[in-house]
């Protein structure tokens, strides 16, 4: 019995359990009625910007284009010490749009969480949202989101984030990733288990955030830290799938790696910071299921990459090459004597059964995710779909290996 044969069933059982749990939750959920807005409270929309001269106008434009009364929008742009012309562009925009209530806050470059807190201090809205400078939002967003705050326990409502104009295979596979992730978050939402309120247009009840003391650095993932704090104080976070926010994804592998490294590292470190909530009945499914899941995700991704890459690719490849070197790389001798005596009994059924179950489960989740987010399976083409299905977990595994290395060497990068 080698290491692979021991770890594989553990990973298999954990993954299977979680997926079955999600599917049962999904089946249990009754379709909710669409809520209609009855009153228009003041909403503060914060746009933090650091060297965003290319996209800042597009972002602010999408805010003022919101289908919401002009006088009920309190727009705050925080220039986080930009060194390009971001500040000038914003000032010019404010001058040209004096019929809107737009403020500019300039601060030294201190990061997004400080920008949010500075905005919170001047924000007048009953509700508070942040739109990252590389994102834009659909017009009806506020009208669709605000009615959910009718439940007093709701502290945040989240939109569905989509990739803006995906180009190239990396951005296209992120489209699929987002679809699956938001489907998962929708299920988690029904269990009140959401562990991150992502930057683009997460809408908060401002007095709750004020009461909890604003945003914290949270290992460069302030949107995750605030979600953990809301969960700790027994607030509800709601995920919607019918409100679209568009964001630009990382355009190259390096930036993708750094973004995912920051996100995933943040999730591990925040779980660790709030570890006292884990396995406490008081925190319901969040403590019993979601927090252990966040920890398991990294373990599973790493296992997959180590097992697949090392035991099934690198090791056999190395052994094969070494053996061939013993016979002076005379491959033709083996090709000439190849014997295709296929015997079905020779397959490794232990691994085959696991792979078959995993593929069935993944495809079910994948198809349901597309159904719930109202997307076509091949919306990004067949090639990115195949790449996503075949290589996404390897990519994720590689990122987790990087995180494991960083955590061992205590390296927590600034964003």
């Amino acid at each position, binding site marked *: 019995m080698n290491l692979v044969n021991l770890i594989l069933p553990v990973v298999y059982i954990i993954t299977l359990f979680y997926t079955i749990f999600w599917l049962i939750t999904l089946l249990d959920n009754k379709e909710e009625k669409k809520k209609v807005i009855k009153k228009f409270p003041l909403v503060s929309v914060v746009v933090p910007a650091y060297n965003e001269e290319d996209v800042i106008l597009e972002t602010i434009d999408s805010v003022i284009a919101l289908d919401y009364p002009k006088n009920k929008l309190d727009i705050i742009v925080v220039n986080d010490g930009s060194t390009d012309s971001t500040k000038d562009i914003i000032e010019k925009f404010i001058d040209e749009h004096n019929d809107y209530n737009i403020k500019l806050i300039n601060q030294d470059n201190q990061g997004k969480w400080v920008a949010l807190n500075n905005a919170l201090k001047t924000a007048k809205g009953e509700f508070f949202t942040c739109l990252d400078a590389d994102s834009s939002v659909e017009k009806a967003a506020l009208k669709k989101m605000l009615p959910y705050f009718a439940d007093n*326990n709701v502290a945040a409502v989240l939109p569905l984030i989509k990739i803006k104009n995906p180009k190239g295979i990396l951005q296209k596979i992120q489209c699929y990733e987002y679809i699956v992730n938001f489907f998962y978050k929708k299920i988690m939402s029904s269990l009140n288990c959401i562990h991150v309120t992502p930057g683009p247009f997460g809408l908060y009840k401002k007095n709750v955030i004020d009461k909890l003391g604003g945003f914290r650095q949270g290992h460069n993932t302030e949107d995750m830290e605030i979600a953990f704090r809301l969960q700790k104080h027994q607030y509800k976070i709601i995920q919607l799938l019918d409100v679209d926010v568009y964001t630009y994804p990382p355009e190259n592998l390096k930036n993708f790696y750094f973004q995912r490294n920051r996100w995933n590292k943040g999730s591990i470190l925040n779980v660790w910071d709030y570890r006292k909530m884990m396995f406490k009945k008081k925190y319901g499914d969040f403590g*019993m299921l979601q927090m252990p899941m966040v920890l398991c995700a990294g373990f599973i991704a790493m296992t997959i990459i180590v097992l697949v890459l090392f035991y099934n690719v690198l090791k056999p490849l190395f052994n094969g090459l070494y053996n061939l070197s*013993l016979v002076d790389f005379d491959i033709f001798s083996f090709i000439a004597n190849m014997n295709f005596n296929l015997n079905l009994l020779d397959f490794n059924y232990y691994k085959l059964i696991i792979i078959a179950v995993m593929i069935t489960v993944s495809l079910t989740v994948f198809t349901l995710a597309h159904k719930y987010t109202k997307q076509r399976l091949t919306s990004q083409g067949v090639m990115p779909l195949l790449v996503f299905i075949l290589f996404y977990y390897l990519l994720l595994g590689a990122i987790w290996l990087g995180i494991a290395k960083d955590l061992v060497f205590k390296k927590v990068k600034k964003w």
Partner: protein
Amino acid sequence: MVREFNKKRYIIAALLTLSIFFLGLMLGLVIEGKRVQYIESMNRIEKLDYSSLQLQYAYIDQLSQEKNCDAVSKTFEKNILNLEEVRSRLENYERNANLNKKDFHTLKREYIIAQLNYWLLAQRTKKICDQDLVTILYFYSTDKECPDCGEQAFILTYLKNEFKDKLLIFALDSTYADEPMIEMLKDQHGISRYPTLIIEGHVFEDFIPKDGILRIICSLYKKDIDYCKNYK
């Protein structure tokens, strides 16, 4: 807010997970049973093949029908290739088996005996039909004590591919304690390390690279063989 905690959902998910897991296990069990049956059926055929071959050589020997030697030696070659294929398959099944390990272990004994039968028969047929061939008895070990066995087997497979029916290789698992013949051979030749090759009665302990084996076997052929030009 007081959170809901639906214990029932966890229990249902756990039960479903375990059911799928055990269903997989059951399927594995069925497949393992089929594997035992398959090896058993191959075993019966192998025994018949061996008896028939023995009979054919006895016929040639007693009635001096040497003209039939070529045809019979082709059958002989085919039989030991089949034998080797089933043996490696059996070993693979035994390695992956979870519940029928004992069945596979017993079946393995039959194959060890078969290998040795064919090896002895090869010694006799060489004389009866005056064949120019070399036999190798390859003692390997399936445990971690023999890190070089995989490489040695790879080289032997390569040489078999090159020499075809001029080279007969019989692989024996030296760690198989239930068959006394293995111990007898090990005692007789003083074998204590693996891999060990017995090439026409000469013992060579430890891993031997391709060129080393070629030098030994090429010196044993009576006639010239193309592959041996550089090794005589």
